[in-house]
């Protein structure tokens, strides 16, 4: 541990640069994943048949091992000369984030007490008013939980993206293996874990802030 700390002190700039790279990759992937996943999740609640299919597909994608997915994307993306580096990593992370985000959104909106939906309709809300004023606010905590899952997952998988040249903290682990250098591995591992813990905590706070006060009871 001491050695790891020493290593960190000696290579601060490097480690920080890699951390920023990691954050950039995961951050961008998450934002895009939310923009795609949440609307899909909401749409799915209006169509159970499609929901089944989409959730199944997302679950299948989740079972694809990350290194295999990176591997599969290299030949495909090579067609546009982007086989390695940031883009395949980004796409892989977006794909992996879809299941937790879509599923949580779908489940959360689906589980909004049917009476709420009924009340909203009966009161004369249009579909959009209902989604905006009732369904999303009530579903938000669960959607956020999905986002948290996705982010923690992405941070971990992001470490593997180093092998296809996407940079990030995985580089430390990868090189640490090559050099049989425990200190590097520890710095990489701790860095990734800290990143995950911090992201999870921050998102947890955000989740609490976004949760309508009246619903703290089930938070």
């Amino acid at each position, binding site marked *: 541990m001491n*050695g790891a700390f020493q290593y960190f002190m000696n*290579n601060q700039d*490097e480690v920080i640069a890699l951390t920023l790279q990691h954050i950039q990759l995961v951050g961008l992937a998450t934002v895009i994943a939310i923009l795609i996943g949440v609307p899909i999740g909401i749409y799915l609640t209006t169509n159970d048949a499609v929901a089944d299919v989409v959730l199944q597909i997302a679950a299948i994608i989740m079972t694809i091992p990350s290194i295999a997915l990176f591997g599969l994307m290299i030949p495909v993306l090579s067609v546009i*000369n982007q086989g*390695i580096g940031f883009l395949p990593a980004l796409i892989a992370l977006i794909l992996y984030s879809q299941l937790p985000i879509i599923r949580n959104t779908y489940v959360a909106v689906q589980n909004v007490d049917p009476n709420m939906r009924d009340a909203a309709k009966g009161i004369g809300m249009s579909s959009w008013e209902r989604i905006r004023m009732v369904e999303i606010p009530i579903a938000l905590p669960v959607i956020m939980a999905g986002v948290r899952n996705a982010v923690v997952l992405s941070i971990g998988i992001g470490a593997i993206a180093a092998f296809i*040249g996407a940079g990030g903290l995985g580089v430390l682990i990868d090189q640490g*293996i090559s*050099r049989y250098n425990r*200190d590097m591995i520890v710095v990489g591992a701790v860095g990734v874990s800290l990143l995950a813990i911090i992201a999870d905590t921050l998102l947890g706070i955000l989740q609490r802030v976004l949760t309508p006060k009246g619903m703290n009871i089930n938070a």
Partner: protein
Amino acid sequence: GNNEDAGGNGESKGSIEVGGKNFTEQFILAKITSIYLEEQGYDVTENTNMGSEVLRQALENEQVDLYWEYTGTGLVNYLNEDPVASSDEAYDLVKELDEENGIIWLDAAEVNNTYTLMMREENADELGISSLSDLADYVNNNPGELEFASNAEFASRADGLAGVQDTYDFEFGSNQVVRMDSGLTYQALDEEQVDVAMGFATDSRIKGFDLLALEDDEGFFPAYNAAPTVRESILENHPELEDTLQALSEKLDTETMTELNYQVDMEQRSETEVSREWLEENGLID
């Protein structure tokens, strides 16, 4: 890296993407190049930790502008030529052929990072093995006994394990070949997980772990001299790069490289530190 613009006169000379492969020597070469170019006033981004093929594609795809490649690798892997044993011949050939692809090989350094097969010294003594021919005899007499550690690349390259086996006429069974990350083969040997391993001639761990690099008595392994490879278009915009990088090539040789590797791998110093120190010692930066 320290990003201050010491050498430049405030004006940036342009931005350069320096690439590198996924083993220590490449990290050092990339780091030395980056620091040096930065001091010269370029905006440098570093992009290392790639496999050879990936890096080469990145160079062609303009994701990377410049990196250190080995002549042997260029000939065999990218140009599909037969390996050439002589350093100079190999360099001339690869430089000439690769120009058609728009890739320029700048002056090569005296660093010959050729492949080598290694054993633990005392084990080799015991088994009476000192050259690849000895190894071949031993394996042929005791099939299935010796285990061999390789990285993924060597294990599947035509000029790698398959070529050695062809030339010396022996074969490790597929059960005897253990694949692992590039840098780990020395460790695997040291830990007695395997009996024979591939390695790079310049790797310091050969010395560090008391390993014996078996003699390539039939001269199978071609020369693998390191030279900066650049895309033609980059050189057109920055003709001065040729001279600039020559300053580095001149000062680097196999011994120096081994020493630098030793500092990073065995003494576990950071490549940044080691690179900067070397540049300073050689008066390339202040």
